[in-house]
């Protein structure tokens, strides 16, 4: 209390005020360098191809919504969007239950070797995708899962497990014991306690992990690049990347920018709604990983 008073009494010197002002300006300037390119993509997606090439910075004369329908239909963004959506939803639908089950057991039922198993899951956060890419490419060929969305989902589930198990194990460790014990005394079995009592309690954790994974899966490029060679199975990042290559010849720039907006807007909205939780989760992952 005394310290706080002492601080307040002390008026900031001129130098400090200037430093603070410079800091402010710098911070805002940096925010602009981050935001302006995104704003530029968004308003450019309403311009005609001619407007884009003749005055890249200019504001669109009319809002050309047709860029979006062109992107969706002619440039197949609609198809890619559907593929990405299916892959993301299917991956989460498998990942969250099996990740939560494993995390629950690892958190609350210690057995001989459970620490080693937990460590093995965590080590997955350390292996770069490219260490496994060639063996994975042949494995998928052997299993007949090459170039299938099913195969991509299986691989995505596997690669998302380490982080999911890590976060959820931490979450289950913090849940109080008494509720589980009370349910046990009432005659519930272990599995029933999990599904009826503990899993509903873990809902905040599941939501964070789900959103965090959804963003990563929606954006994923490297694995899809190697595992999905055919056009009709492309996910959005693959489709957009390909569109840039072909736009050099066709130059329907408007549709390309509309495509970019379609890829980035869902994750930006999701991120903004849950940003505090996402920051927390990223920090936890960084400090462990």
């Amino acid at each position, binding site marked *: 209390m005394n310290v706080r008073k002492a601080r307040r009494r002390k008026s900031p010197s001129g130098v400090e005020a200037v430093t603070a002002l410079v800091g402010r300006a710098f911070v805002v300037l940096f925010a602009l360098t981050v935001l302006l390119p995104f704003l530029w993509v968004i308003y450019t997606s309403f311009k005609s191809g001619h407007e884009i090439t003749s005055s890249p910075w200019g504001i669109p004369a009319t809002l050309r919504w047709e860029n979006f329908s062109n992107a969706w239909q002619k440039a197949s963004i609609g198809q890619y969007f559907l593929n990405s959506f299916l892959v993301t939803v299917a991956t989460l639908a498998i990942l969250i239950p099996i990740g939560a089950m494993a995390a629950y057991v690892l958190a609350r039922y210690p057995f001989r070797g459970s620490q080693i198993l937990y460590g093995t899951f965590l080590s997955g956060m350390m292996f770069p995708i490219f*260490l496994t890419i060639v063996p994975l490419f042949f494995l998928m060929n052997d299993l007949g899962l090459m170039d299938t969305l099913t195969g991509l989902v299986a691989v995505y589930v596997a690669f998302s497990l380490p982080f999911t198990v890590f976060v959820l194990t931490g979450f289950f460790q913090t849940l109080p014991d008494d509720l589980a014990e009370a349910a046990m005394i009432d005659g519930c079995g272990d599995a029933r306690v999990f599904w009826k009592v503990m899993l509903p309690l873990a809902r905040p954790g599941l939501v964070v992990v789900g959103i965090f994974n959804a963003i990563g899966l929606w954006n994923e490029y490297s694995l899809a690049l190697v595992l999905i060679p055919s056009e009709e199975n492309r996910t959005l990042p693959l489709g957009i990347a390909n569109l840039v290559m072909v736009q050099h010849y066709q130059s329907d720039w408007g549709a390309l920018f509309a495509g970019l907006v379609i890829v*980035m807007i869902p994750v930006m909205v999701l991120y903004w709604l849950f940003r505090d939780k*996402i920051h927390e989760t990223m920090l936890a992952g960084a400090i462990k990983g």
Partner: protein
Amino acid sequence: MKRRGRTLFVASFLAPAVAVYGLFVCWPVLQAFQFSMFRWKGISENKTFVGLENFQRLVEDKFFWQALEHNLWIVGVGGSITMALALAISHALQDQSRFTRFLRGTYLFPHIVSMVVVAILWMFVYNPSIGLLTQSIQKMGFSDFNVTWLADPKTALPAVSAAFVWYAIGFYVMLFAAGLKAISKDVEEAAELDGARGLRKFWRVTWPLLWSVKRVAVIHFIISALNIFALVFLMTDGGPDRKTEVMLTYLYEQAFENSQYGYSTALAVANFAIVMALSAFVMFVFRKDPTGARA
């Protein structure tokens, strides 16, 4: 009876995750170490064991060394710039007003959109005819100005690195902000009462107290910079004349364009080993926390 039921429960709850993880992550990781010792072009009969020959070839491969050098350039130059900017920004953003929280939220946008979006965005920044950068410089009065940023061997690597810094920085702002928040107000105020202010306070008090956060940040940057792929692959594909080639774009070329499966897997193992070695080195450098606090 009860005991057996519990074992069954534990096993059945672990089984799905262990099966998927084992098959699609652990098994390929183990295979990677095996593949790296074979000469193999994808046809199973022609798989010959060659021991460490692939690694020997790697050591003599000047394109690999060049690629590694580019990765390390990004770690050194890009990393220093990222850390300095992130530290300055997070230090200037310490109050918890709505406005600063808004700003802090925006910094992470590049990190949460797809790397594909980042790459395409920066291709438009650097595009020589409709690019924002060249256009803006010309508008400022330098009408002859014409640099083909990504096609010029001199500017390509810095240009790609700038895009990477732009992408990376928000994450480190967040990290340092969390570190600064954890520094106890009492310590800060005690330092101020002792007359330490401004830069002096920063170097004497704040900077040493950020020890464990700095370690996390440096290791994190090393890992992500040595594993750059999509950004370079899309922006330049390693060009011009391999001037932006990084380890993983070279790996991709060897594996999926030249079908050098054994050799490319050796490259993947080497990449992993380099990442681990550098991280261990950083851990060693930062081994003693001068503040004595636990990391």
